[in-house]
């Protein structure tokens, strides 16, 4: 008896909810941007904006010759690969039923580990041709944070339209991507390519920012669930 009443209630409540849901303006049900389009849109705009920034700040003297040296070139390539795949991971983490392929995860892991290890392998502890008194070097840490923030907001505003069930993970991926790309752009302008500087002024802010964006993301990227 109680079961029958419960079942009847269920059916009534279901009908009422369906009636409410089908009143939604059709525009709100329209399909969002395809993940690949989201990625191309963000990554393309990001590369253009950061290229503009490099031109504005002025590239490091002798950049073209330096970047052809294997270690410095590999580091920059790892930044690009890490930034690109992190953005892809951030986008897919907001699409139910989708996630990065195993090979993509492996490459991302390899790129991030390589970024941390490569300064120990390729970068000198002290660079004799660098004037250590240059103030520019001190600005790298805050500049990475400042320059990375806007692209993160840009990426976040794309990701907030998705439906992430793991908002903190989306936050970490998006933060890693945006701040890593910013760090890469400033790497091209930075006059000081020494081990300590690369680790402390270029990679540490990326790690800290990714940590912070996990918290910010857990709020921002879960807001879609609270929408009425």
């Amino acid at each position, binding site marked *: 008896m109680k079961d029958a009443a419960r079942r009847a209630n269920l*059916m009534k*409540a*279901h009908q009422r909810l369906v009636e409410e849901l089908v009143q939604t303006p059709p525009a709100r*049900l329209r399909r969002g941007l395809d993940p690949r389009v989201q990625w191309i849109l963000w990554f393309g705009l990001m590369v253009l904006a950061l290229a503009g920034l490099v031109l504005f700040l002025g590239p490091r003297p002798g950049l073209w010759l330096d970047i052809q040296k294997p270690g410095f070139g590999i580091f920059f390539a790892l930044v690009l690969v890490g930034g690109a795949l992190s953005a892809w991971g951030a986008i897919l983490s907001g699409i139910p*039923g989708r996630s990065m392929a195993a090979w993509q995860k492996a490459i991302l892991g390899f790129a991030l580990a390589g970024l941390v290890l490569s300064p120990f392998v390729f970068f000198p502890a002290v660079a004799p041709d660098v004037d250590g008194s240059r103030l520019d070097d001190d600005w790298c840490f805050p500049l990475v944070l400042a320059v990375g923030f806007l692209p993160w907001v840009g990426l976040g505003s794309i990701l907030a*339209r998705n439906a992430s*069930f793991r908002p903190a993970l989306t936050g970490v991926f998006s933060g890693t991507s945006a701040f890593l790309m910013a760090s890469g752009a400033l790497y091209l302008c930075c006059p000081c390519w020494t081990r300590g500087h690369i680790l402390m002024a270029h990679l540490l802010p990326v790690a800290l920012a990714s940590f912070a964006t996990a918290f910010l993301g857990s709020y921002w990227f879960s807001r879609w669930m609270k929408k009425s």
Partner: protein
Amino acid sequence: MALDRDSKSKKPFGYSSEENRLQWESWQSLMALTQSGDLQAYRRLLEEIGPLLLGYVRKRVYDPDQVMDAYQDLLLTLHKALPTYDPKRPLGPWLFTVARNSLLVSLGRKRRILEREVQVEKLQDRAQAPAAEESEGLGDELYRALRGLPKMNRQAVELLKIQGLSLEEASRRLGISVPALKVRAHRGYEYLRKSLGEVRKK
């Protein structure tokens, strides 16, 4: 439409694998039509996947009173996540990811609300324990605190805790959804807890 789990007509797992495949393909096309703005297709889709989702919820939620809340939360989450579905991909993984996560969120929220409700009840119990005059004083304070609530929160608390209506009945009376009612009531409890806590300190 029959939401009954025993209903054979809409039970996807009752079909042969070929029929099952056709059923999923039909839902995929309904999703595509929904995304192109066809609300009739949306209604049909919700009617057809309702039993499947309800079965999913029933298998995982043991408290019959929580089934309806979890099911409603699931439909709402599905509705909000709908723009992320790609009609070229199979519907199953998308649908069950939404269902699993919605259930986790919904049950987690329910647990937190229950914990807070217990705290308010404990406060009320404690208020009844002291001497009669103190008890009367707190009764007044409770009444005053209730009066101090914004209208929409007060209505929610009164219907649920004073009149003792169920969530469904109260939400019907206020003309709002059950999750919206829960939010209103929860804010009301928070306010009461704060006000009564201050009274106890005095």
